[in-house]
């Protein structure tokens, strides 16, 4: 999952980016509203975290502009102004949730996770896929009682597919959403991740949880899709 963090305070930006990366997200950062708008328009994002008090372009205007351009990813507002007036204005501008400074990093992770799940249509923090159970909060995957040990990138790939259950996801899209802009992306690596992921979650090859649509990409298996 790829996030955009727009926060003008450099120290806070650095430490939040670190926390979010630690939670397994690809994070693009920006320190002002105009650059944030550019990123929001150009990058394939799954969620944006936007501070309201931004130089260049105020956070509220940034949100309005993104929504006007049909950018529908969830937006979480960070605000130092705890007023409901500001919260209501932010939500009316098109944001989906708010977080008041100073917040707990855990709270931020929980809100981000909840927004991503919500946009994927999952109300519950865990998803069941046949015998597989995926806890989206703790980012752990179980097959029955047995926990499957996944690397960060394997989990990222699996999570992205879970969050887009109806879509055929190309290797490029996967690469875009699990890597940040600055990373050197190689879509062939995705094939390696998917291969390893299949072997780990379905060692006997009975479930086929990830279908390959030849020449098009991958899709979560409809037969075992969560209800």
């Amino acid at each position, binding site marked *: 999952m790829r996030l955009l963090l727009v926060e003008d305070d450099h120290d806070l930006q650095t430490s939040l980016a670190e926390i979010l990366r630690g939670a397994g997200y690809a994070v693009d950062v920006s320190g002002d509203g105009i650059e944030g708008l550019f990123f929001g328009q150009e990058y394939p994002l799954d969620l944006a975290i936007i501070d309201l008090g931004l130089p260049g372009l105020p956070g509220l205007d940034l949100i309005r502009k993104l929504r006007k351009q049909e950018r529908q990813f969830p937006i979480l507002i960070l605000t130092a102004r705890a007023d409901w007036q500001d919260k209501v204005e932010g939500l009316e501008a098109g944001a989906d949730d708010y977080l008041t400074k*100073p917040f707990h990093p855990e709270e931020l992770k929980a809100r981000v996770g909840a927004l991503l799940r919500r946009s994927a249509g999952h109300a519950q923090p865990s998803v069941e896929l046949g015998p597989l159970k995926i806890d989206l909060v703790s980012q752990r995957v179980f097959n029955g009682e047995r926990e499957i040990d996944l690397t960060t990138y394997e989990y990222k790939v699996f999570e992205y597919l879970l969050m887009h259950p109806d879509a055929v996801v190309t290797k490029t899209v996967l690469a875009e959403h699990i890597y940040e802009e600055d990373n050197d992306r190689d879509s062939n690596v995705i094939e390696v991740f998917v291969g390893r992921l299949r072997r780990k979650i379905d060692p006997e090859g009975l479930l086929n949880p990830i279908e390959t649509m030849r020449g098009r990409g991958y899709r979560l298996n409809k037969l075992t899709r969560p209800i």
Partner: protein
Amino acid sequence: MSKVSIEAHQQKPWSLRTRLVVLAVLLLTVSLGLVGFALDAAFHRSSEAGLQARMESLVYLVLGATEVAENGVLVIDENPGDPRLAQPGSGIYASVSGAQDRWDSVSSLGVNLPEPVLIPTGESQFLPASEKTGGYYIFYYGVSWELTQGRMLPVTVTIFVDPQELQPELRAFRSGLWQSLGLAGLILVLAQVILLALGLRPLRRISEDISGIESGKLERLEGNYPVELEPLQRNLNHLLETEQANQARYRNALDSLAHSLKTPLSVIRSSLPSDDSPKTVAMDHAVTDMQHLIATRLQRAAASARSSNAPAVDVKIQLERLVSSLKRVYSQQLINIDVLIEPELAFYGEQRDFLELTGNLLDNACKYGAGQVRISAHTMDTEDDRVGIRLQVDDNGPGIAEDKREQLLQRGVRGDERVEGHGLGLAIVLEIVNSYHGEISIEQGELGGACVNITLKTR
């Protein structure tokens, strides 16, 4: 008009209209009184002059009836031509004094007249009624009667007139005078009242406009006022603008203070290691304390910057905004928020305060309730909706234990303690309720959960 006046602790000063009317009545009474006395005196003088002329003609009448014998004895007709001289006690008396004898008219029979004096020939003298004249008007006229052989007999004719003679005339004049002066006074006072009503109309208009500003219908004084009121209009508008600007500046200062404090706090918090070591916990608590202080103290300061003339807040529109925002935030949890508001209910306070209060209450209800939330709002006084509003927020959550309710409210008032759960939001709610001199209570609600009752006074 009284609405605008500042509440006075002592007795209220008289209204301008009463002052002006009372002063006008006093002034008119004094000046019309003086005019009356002057006219009365002038009339008195002119009727005395008339009397003198009449007395003079009586002298000629008496002289016409007078004969002097050769021996100097006066021979005078009993009725010299005026019947009142022949009627005893008629009020008009004549007396003719010669060298040896004296003739008195029949009318002076039994009347105690002063002793006539002799005055030189060819002179006349008019004495107005006084103590010296025994209370009579007296007219002396000196003549000489030519006797044979060129002898001259000096004779003085004296006419006495009782002052009662003038009374009917004076009485009629006086009653006419005071009646017309009273009528004139009355007309003048009425005219004054009408003039005042017309003249003070712009003042009444300006006071109505100020009430309009008070109730939020107007932002400034825009009316077309007379020249004399223009400086007042200008100054009031200037005052309003300055107040608004100051408030905006104050609020911006508070905002930027909050912003600049909270971001470093976020940095501290996000830099804390994610463990449960006592150090981390202590730091985290310290940050929470500071967060709490900023939120409650800034709220208090912002409340003190509240405008005395806040425009009316449409309760329905603001609650609808809030509810749709909250539904967005809690979109996963299928929360049903019922809003029960009196039609056209207005809150005469700050919109920011209203949103902050109801936002925190509804947020808590959504967070701790089980999907069912109800907010109702009513005016405190059906006669005057400026008095304030009554709010009730209900949820179907577990509620708040009876022994904890008081504690929660107490903590919120002190505002400097760490409180969990309902904590910070409720502390801000308490700050706002206090700043509006309102009341708050928590009880078991109809929906089964906590039910928060609040009153906010806006007058």
